[in-house]
């Protein structure tokens, strides 16, 4: 099992619903976030293009954050989900520095926090909170090893990219372009 997310930049309107939904679902404290929206505008008026991306931890297959964690707090769960166990985490910040995507942040309670792919929901067979609220239905979540899953299907159909492939992290969040 390899969980993955595909996000359609052609449909995302950057509304940030995924960000609030994550906040209320996961008790992410006000002033912090596990996901965020990047908007890139290129060109000169009126020859313009925008790419909008909802970003979060990429649940990298080759993740520097897991490698550099001195306590094993950062680890892989079933399906390649990268998670932090709060009471193993000493808050040294190594994983934060090691993530090329700046996907982690120090939780006010001391440990480091990040997207969990909503493991608690996924285990129950639900979609991650952000995916389940997205008004444009531009996010797809599922198992890459299952050829029939929504993600596998959409990745077969569409062109996609990952972020900073040069970093060699093998992200599991794909952007449909």
């Amino acid at each position, binding site marked *: 099992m390899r969980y993955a997310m595909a996000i359609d930049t052609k449909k995302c309107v950057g509304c940030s619903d995924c960000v609030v939904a994550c906040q209320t679902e996961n008790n992410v404290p006000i002033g912090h976030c596990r996901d965020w929206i990047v908007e890139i505008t290129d*060109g000169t008026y009126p020859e313009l293009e925008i790419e909008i991306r909802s970003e979060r931890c990429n649940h990298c297959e080759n993740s520097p954050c897991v490698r550099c964690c001195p306590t094993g707090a950062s680890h892989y769960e079933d399906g390649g989900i990268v998670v932090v166990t709060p009471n193993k985490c000493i808050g040294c910040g190594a994983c934060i520095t090691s993530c090329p995507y700046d996907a982690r942040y120090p939780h006010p309670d001391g440990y480091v926090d990040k997207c969990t792919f909503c493991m608690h929901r996924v285990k129950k067979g639900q979609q991650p909170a952000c995916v389940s609220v997205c008004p444009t239905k531009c996010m797809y979540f599922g198992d890459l090893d299952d050829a029939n899953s929504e993600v596998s299907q959409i990745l077969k159909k569409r062109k996609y990219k990952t972020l900073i492939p040069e970093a060699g992290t093998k992200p599991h969040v794909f952007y449909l372009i």
Partner: protein
Amino acid sequence: MSKTRRDFIKISSLSAAGIFAGAKYLQSAIPGNATKLGEIGNLNLNRTPTYCEVCFWKCAGWVHKNEDGTIKKITGNDDDPNCNGRLCPRGTGGIGMYYDEDRLKTPLMRVTGKDGKQTYREASWDEALDFIAKRMKEIKEKHGAECTALLTHGSGGHYFGSLIKAFGSGNVAAPSYAQCRGPREVAFLATFGEGLNSPEPTDIRDTRCLVLIGSHLGENMHNGQVQEMSDAIDKGATIITVDPRFSTVASKSKFWLPIKPATDIALLLSWMHEIINNGWYDKKYIEKYAYGFEELKDYIQPFTPEWAYGITTIKPDQIRETAREMANAAPAVIIHPGRHVTWYGDDTQRVRAMAILNALLGSWGRRGGFYIPDITSVPKYPHPHFPEPARDWRDAMGGKYKLADLALASGVCDATIPTPDLDCHIKAWIVNGTNLIMTLPDQRKTLDAINSLELMVVIDTMPAEITGYADVVLPECTYLERWDDLRILQGRFPTISLRMPAAQPKYNSKPGYWIAKELAKKMGLGEYFAWNTFEEKLDWELKQVNSSLEEMKKIGVKKLTREYDDIYFNDGEDIEFNTNTGKIELYSTALEEEGFDPMPRYTPHQEPPEGFYHLNYGRAPMHTFSRTTNNPNLADLMDENVVWVNPKVAKEWGLENGQEVYLENQDGIISDFKIKVRVTERIRFDSVYMIHGFGHTNKKLTRTYGKGASDSQLITRVLTDPIMGGTGMRGNFVTFRFEKESEAQS
């Protein structure tokens, strides 16, 4: 007549607890400890139905609570056609309305101290309502009951509407008409004999071509439409966006027409020119249903794409190509009517042009165009007839705006300001759920009106600016803490949905229905609110449509059966339209009767003077007007607005990204606060753009006070639509100011 000088009061006597709001919020807004993995309980076990009140799309949803009844999150109801189980960011973040520590906490009454200074003192509900009842009685005796008005937006309108009608006034106005969709309703009524209402019956999910004139879907987060637009993108529909700004949806569009502001009618006319002259219109449809085609055909002959190019700066071949694209998709094409259409004063005519285009392409009543909506009627809990008011706001209009089908909030304002030619001026306002200071254009006029009142009661949840001018402020609890009337909306099929309290009202706040009923009792109008409990009333009403409160608590949304059997016209079906001619009026007899152009006409609008720019404004997806900017969850996403400036303009002025400036408009009004510059290619060189709803002046809104600038303050030039009285707000120009006089002197 004693004139109360209504100084703005910063609701300073609010309980001392409020002072610590900021610090305390973090604990209260995030109930319980931070998540340790896997510790989230099964919130689905403990959920209650609601429908969202963060905007007026009214999505139905669920409020989820944890074991100890703490509200944790809100999600959409899968059975609701408005949201299909997915709320928009504002709906998801609606939880912040409940947790906001700045909320109004107890009734407040204006008192004048010995030093002549006005302040508020906390009052009991009994005292506050007694005072209002007494004042209303005096006003009735002195001026007549009809010299009172209700200005309202949102669910409370039902109760306060009944109250004021029972009292004997017909003046009930909402800003969602003359400041919003009024011109559109009148234009569609004039053309198809039907208004559009809400949600608009646009069949976006099945359309093959969606044309957006301004309408910035995706930033305008009217949920169902955004969802359907996304479905349409999936199905490969063409989107054509006409907007001087590179809006989000422009970036998703196959065609973006970067039109020069205020020239849309010219573009629309030349589209008609192309569609008619090339014979691309739906001939069978027009022949069967339309009135005035030949007149229209003759009329549009001069409006070639070349003519329009000179006005709109849209290239002729782009105009041709997009006209062709629409024709190819017809009748599955939507020239979207927009919603906030009060732009330049000729708005009814602009939307008429859009309606006519839809008619030419045969999209009204067709799949992928406009469907025929259905709405159910649920019998209301019985109450005595309302008395006939002696006169109403329309009498104050001197025969103008006869085509307006709803009351004008701005009209009520006009009828309040004393002028010799009116024998009755409005003397009391009940203001419910509308922050008129930020909502109505030309704040000076709003304040004039307020200053002429003998009584102003404001019912709100937050210390919005308007509350500072009230004689009595009544704190309503939020939608998460109350029952409300059933949501009954039109749609592809009719639905009803229930809102029930998920928690007890916080502080000393009360539900709107309770406030109205208690006030009615004190005013001797108790018989209009004959139910004992609100549950009893709801249950009675639900039983009339074969449901019950018990059932609705479990399902939240109930689908009812359609009255009309089909949502589209059948091929060749005979249809009687609700117009003078019984046909779709390309040539409007109703407008002609009232002395207006029967077919839309392009008139040039003023251009910005040297060094000034069009003040363009719009929505951010995560905020609703001025009501959410203090919401902790939503302020977290965007806590201030910025002014978009084209790089060329920035260079000319030496402006840098993030630099703070004041904006000054053509009438010398300078924004209260500085606003940060965002240098971006997304805006034209002749305009600046900002999100509406920021620049709050009430310090009690601790999170949002002084953040960004207010477009409302800068909209002092109002271009009134002569047809229906809509207040065009886009005729204002601004320039940059680096400091204020007061600063320069010191």
